[in-house]
């Protein structure tokens, strides 16, 4: 972390929250593009990004620089916010998806970007979900190898725990095995 970033964090933790603006300016575009790639919907992206930065602002007192860089911490909040978004996503389409707001600055550009991302995702679909995540984080998000390991390590650990529990459940419940076989076959 740069010394200016560390100082901004320390100042925020001392109660001088105006320095959060320094952190915001540094990361807003990165976090915005991180979320947009995964959500591919402008309004939802804005909601999630707002959520990420408000959470970071509210919880910055608990951030410990000895355990991770601020970047890693912020990306993890963003990653989990996206996952929460998909968990809570409703299948019906919101009227906001259909209307063009007056303040939209560049509708054509946004649509063009969404179409391009849809195309990219078709190529990405040829890879496993984990591989997609690795490729996206390295190429689109431009995270370093170490940052990717750190951001994913926690998530992978939790995911592997879930898989282990699923397998245990399958072994104990023969009916579940049959159901899964019917699904895949």
């Amino acid at each position, binding site marked *: 972390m740069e010394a200016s970033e560390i100082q901004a964090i320390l*100042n925020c933790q001392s109660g001088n929250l105006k320095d959060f603006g320094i952190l915001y300016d540094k990361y807003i575009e990165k976090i915005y593009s991180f979320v947009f790639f995964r959500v591919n919907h402008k309004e939802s992206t804005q909601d999630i990004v707002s959520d990420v930065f408000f959470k970071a602002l509210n919880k910055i007192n608990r951030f410990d*620089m000895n355990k991770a860089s601020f970047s*890693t911490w912020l990306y993890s909040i963003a990653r989990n*916010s996206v996952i929460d978004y998909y968990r809570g996503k409703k299948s019906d389409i919101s009227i906001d998806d259909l209307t063009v707001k007056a303040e939209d*600055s560049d509708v054509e550009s946004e649509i063009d970007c969404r179409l*391009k991302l849809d195309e990219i995702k078709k190529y990405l679909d040829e890879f496993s979900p984990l591989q997609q995540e690795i490729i*996206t984080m390295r190429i689109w998000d431009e995270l370093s190898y170490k940052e990717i390991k750190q951001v994913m390590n926690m998530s992978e650990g939790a995911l592997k725990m879930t898989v282990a529990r699923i397998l245990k459940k399958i072994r104990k419940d023969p009916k579940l095995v049959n159901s899964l076989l019917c699904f895949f076959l």
Partner: protein
Amino acid sequence: MNNNINKLLQDIYKLDPELKSRENELIALIGKIKDTKNKFKPDTNFVHRLRNELMSAPERDKKENFINNYINMKKYIFGGAVAFVCLLLFAVVYYPLVSKNNGDQASLNLDLGKMNIESVDNFGLLSLSRASSDSNIELSKAMGLGESAGLGSAVSSDGSADSFLVMPAPAPYSYVYMGDDFEKPNEKGNVYKRVIPADVSKQFASFIKNINLGLVDLKNFNNVGLQNLTLVEDNDFGLIININLNSAEVSIYQNWDKWPKTETNLSITDIPKDDVVIAIANNFLSKYGIDNGNYGSPVVNNQWREYYIMNDGQGQSYVPDTMQVVYPLLVEGLSVYDQGGQPVGLNVLVNVLHKKVAGVNGLRASNYQSASYELISDVEELIAEAENGGFGNSYKQNNDNEIKVELGKPKVGLVKLYNYKNGQQEEMLVPSLIFDILDKPDGYYGRQKVIVLLVKEMEREQPMPMIEPAILR
């Protein structure tokens, strides 16, 4: 091939070697992503609007702000300082700047390194709970992620790590005590409450006011205190020393600009033995005059190894480049633990790649009030509570397929918890029994220790029912 693309590919292969066989697809994909990324920009109206909203957000809830809480607490005058750090500070920073009278040198000796305990009548009915940041550490360790595995705690979408990427299902474990008989605890024991010497910040401020910045006359400001002081070492492997005078705490971090930015994929054989890591930590403390007299024998936090073993050979094992050495805090002969049963105290982070200390935290003034409370002395009652999961036990479902986990003979210690009172959180040390888990079953992901609080009269945190995630229903 373009060097940049080659570097990107090499990084991707390090993360997943299987992708090597799909290099042509990756190269095409990289081109498409880069092309789209170059044209992508966030909505500037949104960016400005959000910034304004964040900057005008209401002041944070002071219940969340430990620093502000301590300012409002009763003031107790203690003499002392983090002697060496303060002397170093004044020798390096203040001495050349502070004006001298008749050749006398300005100095401030606060002697905060000494532990002070003052007896008081009582703290009232205790309303104890975990602080979510500490509970995250416990949960993170319970999940085998360890503190040195990257983030050190599972960070959730709200940044506080109260929940995980995937919410854990109710623990399928039941506990059975298999240890030897143990003596019943005393009928009474001390509970400790941490207090902060409030005038330390003002004593520092009185020095600062003598500095002539040439911009403003600091002497004209009244009743000021210095909250934070940061020193930055400007040399290779330099460190940043932050002195928080509100919480009377010193933290040391890497000055990242001065450390090599090498990314190395460590293997487990690269990690030195514990005694080597501890020696590096001990040498650092000795060199910088950090008194570890209030702490017990150091131990290396090796919890990351459990996670490594679980994932070994699957290409996802992570070997951290920083090891944590913990010097457990001792208060009147008892070790202090967190809610997960892990030792709490002075932490020294050792970068094993460069064999240097990369950080220190938990170095703080140890001033406490103590009050006597009645303790649970019925051994059968204590064992029953342990077998029920102890403090903060998970919501249990009726499950005939629970896996039995054996508990060993407990040790007595102090567990760090928070007493919520009058809108503030007070840091407390509560006498407790800490039970070890014996012979963890394969794939065990439950708690690492079971804690049973010994204090009789208190409101206890209610365990939250866990909602089974949809994926497991």
